[in-house]
């Protein structure tokens, strides 16, 4: 089978979820009361909305992640041909990793790898 069969798996998943959700939204018993459709917060009414500006403590991680993720993309092809590339490929990747490692070390020492 070729990769177009991925569509099949996509369809199967959608049918499974959609079918079950359709069934479940019509058949089971329902009841109405106002509190049911309000957000749950341990039985107390929510104070203020939830869609506020949320302070994420990890935006620096996200940036470093980007660097490393792109790097992974570069390393995958190298990994496949590693056996054929031989010494040249090895030295090149050594340099590549050295620079990357320096970057990580720099971030580490600058306390970028710390949840603020």
């Amino acid at each position, binding site marked *: 089978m070729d990769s177009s069969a991925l569509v099949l798996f996509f369809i199967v998943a959608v049918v499974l979820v959609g079918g079950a959700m359709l069934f479940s939204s019509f058949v089971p018993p329902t009841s109405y009361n106002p509190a049911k459709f309000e957000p749950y917060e*341990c039985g107390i009414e929510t104070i*203020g909305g939830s869609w506020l500006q949320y302070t994420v*403590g990890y935006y620096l991680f996200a940036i470093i992640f980007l660097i490393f993720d792109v790097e992974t993309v570069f390393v995958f092809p190298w990994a496949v041909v590693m056996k054929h590339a031989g010494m040249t490929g090895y030295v090149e990747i050594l340099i590549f990793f050295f620079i990357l490692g320096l970057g990580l070390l720099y971030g580490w020492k600058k306390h970028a790898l710390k949840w603020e």
Partner: protein
Amino acid sequence: MAEFSEKYIITDEIKADEYLVNIGPQHPSTHGVLRLLTRLEGEIVHNVEPHIGYIHSGIEKMTEALSYPQIVHLTDRMDYLSAHMNNEAVCLCVENALQVEVPERVKYIRTIFDELQRLASHQLWWCASGMDLGALTAFFYGLRDREDILDIFEETCGARLTLNYSVPGGVMFDIHPNFQKSVKAFITKFRKKLPEYDKLLTDNIIFQNRTKGVGVLSKEDAIAFGVTGPTGRASGFSCDVRKHHPYSAYPYIKFDEKLGTDGDSFMRWKVRMDEMWESMNIIEQLIDNIPEGDFAVKMKGVIKLPEGEFYQRVESARGEFGVYIVSDGKKNPYRVKFRSPGFSNLFTINHIAKGWKIADLVAIMATFDLVIPDIDR
């Protein structure tokens, strides 16, 4: 519903990036119906406001209509994990007021029950805080071993949790013939099980990272807030009532007061773990030497305290538990005030949880070992 929420509108403004999250009343880690109004910035806790009253049942007011044995029964429902200590406190207070000397046997039995109750309470604390920290298996191991103590309780008093075993003038029943045997069997068994607790959590690197240095309560603060019990002792505040104001059979025995130094969550944990060993030592000192004699002195049908004010403190599993009775000479007290350890312990939480993460708040709560009806009565 709208009126209900209006009562809780927060007076000071919510900052733009601040998150106002209610932890509780119904929340797995508040151990009851405590409400913590928490201000978060991302994961960081800015402010914790404990709101109590969700389990308030007016026990202090209720006691004004009850006779003394009935008050004893009601104290089971306050700090239900140290039910026997609460019973004993009221009984001791009444006995002191009437200047009744209870037989030695009663003193021994009461002390053994105190320590068994402390063990049971600490086991429950261990498993509940293990669950709060995410180690679910700990929950089951703690409760598994606790059942053995509950069996001993049930054999002698007929109840598992709300014992109502001490009565003014003695104890309700004599100990069961099997009592000494089963207590000794339990101690032997539990001495083997306790090191497992350490292996599973205390030594675990994840656990240590979660608790070491988290939520430090200094000794000065502990004293200022009136923090007692293992929580206070973890900060280095020597506050063991058993040591400083011995009652029942505590004057006859040797035991160490376990003091911590750091006052962080790990030290609170450690102090309680050490106390379990110490409790077993105390029981072993007493269990073979229970003197013969009556298990209660004959009291009058209707107990009337002389006019005056009486105070008695005991060391419950959570700290200093005090009973203050004002009597006007009738069969009901004029006013009763319970000094519960949880109340003073809880209100340090804003002080020490500030600046930590939400997961640390849960860890701090876990090591405080809160029982909400004890705080709220």
